């Protein structure tokens, strides 16, 4: 009984600890600037106003431009969605080949590919810049899609490979005897089994790519910058009064899509992450 009280007290404390920043962000974003100046940080907004949100979305200044976050929000969407889909698709094919169509050295290749999971962003900046120049990719969106697909491949391949290793190889053999080829087997037999791991890969990649700042700031320019870079510019704009409510609203806007993806598909995430580990 006492043990339970302690556990629950602890859990509640930890909950508060984690949720407090979010609470402060939301409540601050709904306050007016006057109220922020006079009131306490953790007080609820006396007079709820969405002005800060509208300003953050529509007219806040990020550097010299004052058009809010909206343009950058769509910038991010424009490269995040293709990057997530392409890296997931290639990861799935890679995993399929590395488990069901093994060849001499395929395990070695997989081990080498895994090194990619441990390489920090900073290390690849210069080589990547050279590669992009060499390939002549000038368009910001294309550049970011390319960079994130390449960087994400190691992870998506790992996910799919570890998932497919628990799929019985006999399924593929049976399909081969039934007369199906490489892509037919993938499309008709393997992919329908892969929903949980596809969801995992999409959540992971979406969160990684959406939240990325470093690649965004290095490989993009001007109006085409992703939302993370824009948020940084907005918060660091030094002209005029510091508008905490607008900063908070902008930060929440920048975080909403990943939150949304997690809420919608989160239960698959936990299920999918363990699916590879336990033979199911």
């Amino acid at each position: 009984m006492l043990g339970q009280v302690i556990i629950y007290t602890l859990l509640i404390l930890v909950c508060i600890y984690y949720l407090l920043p979010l609470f402060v962000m939301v409540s601050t974003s709904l306050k007016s600037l006057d109220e922020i100046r006079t009131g306490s940080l953790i007080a609820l907004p006396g007079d709820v106003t969405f002005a800060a949100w509208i300003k953050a979305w529509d007219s806040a200044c990020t550097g010299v431009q004052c058009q809010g976050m909206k343009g950058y929000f769509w910038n991010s969407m424009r490269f995040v969605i293709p990057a997530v889909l392409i890296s997931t698709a290639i990861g799935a094919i890679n995993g399929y080949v590395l488990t069901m169509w093994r060849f001499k050295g395929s395990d070695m290749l997989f081990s080498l590919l895994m090194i990619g999971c441990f390489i920090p962003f900073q290390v690849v900046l210069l080589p990547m810049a050279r590669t992009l120049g060499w390939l002549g990719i000038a368009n910001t969106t294309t550049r970011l899609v390319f960079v994130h697909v390449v960087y994400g491949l190691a992870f998506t391949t790992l996910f799919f490979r570890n998932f497919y290793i628990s799929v019985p190889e006999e399924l593929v053999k049976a399909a081969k005897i039934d007369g199906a080829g490489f892509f037919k087997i993938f499309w008709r037999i393997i992919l329908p089994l892969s929903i949980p791991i596809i969801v995992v890969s999409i959540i992971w990649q979406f969160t990684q790519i959406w939240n990325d700042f470093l690649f965004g700031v290095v490989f993009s320019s001007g109006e085409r910058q992703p939302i993370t870079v824009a948020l940084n510019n907005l918060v660091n704009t030094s002209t005029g009064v510091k508008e905490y409510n607008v900063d908070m609203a902008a930060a929440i806007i920048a975080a909403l899509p990943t939150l949304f993806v997690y809420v919608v598909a989160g239960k698959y995430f936990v299920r999918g992450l363990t699916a590879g580990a336990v033979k199911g």
Partner: protein
Amino acid sequence: MGALSIRAVRKAYGQVEILKGINIEIEAGEFLILVGPSGCGKSTLLSMIAGLDTITSGDIYIGDRLVNKLSPKDRDIAMVFQSYALYPNMTVRGNIAFGLEIRKVPKNEQDKIVQRVAQILQMEHLLDRKPSQLSGGQRQRVAMGRAIARDPTLFLFDEPLSNLDAKLRVEMRTEIKLLHQRVGKTIVYVTHDQIEAMTLGDKIAVMKAGEVQQFGTPQQVYDDPANLFVASFMGSPSMNFITCPVVSAGSGVGVQLENEGNTFVFPVNHAEPKLRSWVGKEVILGIRPEQITHKNESRVGEPHIQSANCKVELTEPTGPDTLVVIHLNGKETVCRVHPMHAKFHGERMELMFDMAKAVYFDPKTEQRLA
């Protein structure tokens, strides 16, 4: 030209030889069993027939086509796997029709075939279920249905019954045999279970360590084993192997046995010409439990019948028979007697040995002598 010819087939992974020159030939409609302990290469051989594994050297013919280089789909075969390998995302109908669909069989034709197959296997009511909603036996049946639907010239079965419980296994065994009689197709069937091998096969290839130890009908393999391994592998309870000296007995030759200090010599009769040169040396006598029974007065006096009074060490009733364990030359020996006549631990019992089917092995090479 037979339905399946395997000629000098070898398989090696680097230095490791998995199959060391396999030769098997069967006729159309025959049921071939590949049997042996795990690791003997039987499944590898099946994979090579299916085209899922490459051949290091040698030739495999299906009908009169050399299939060495053909991909699985062009070999006109169907395979039933140990895990059934049903496509989990498709219904039973989808599973059966998948191969037909890939081969571009028209839709209405597909439906007809699925219906016919479902009828043969009595699973019409299961057609719209997913594999996960089926029991082990039903999955097994679907896997067979998928194979039948394609109407191939050769069926391959890879230990199809080993995932079922004992009762179901016997049922499905009968069903496979019936199916074979009904469709009359050539079947290659891999198992490690010697009872399945005996009951199902027209021909049995007993394999060990990448070699065919013996190839023949079930009765040949059982009655006339080529070596000690085959003799010990086939039959349950296993054949008794007793090391015994060969001695001269009157004008003939006999083997000398001992129980509880009593020594007796059994003439070897038909094996005499081959064992004459072994007098003074030891051989391994192989005698099956059913050839040692309680004394039956009506048979005493027949030329191959010998009897001896032995002390019983253990009795194991199985129902129809009781297994009685005695010691011969210090070796546990199982005898199969009628339950009414069985004696118990410590008692003595008059036993009758039928030496007509006794076999003899060289203790060193373990090859059959006579």
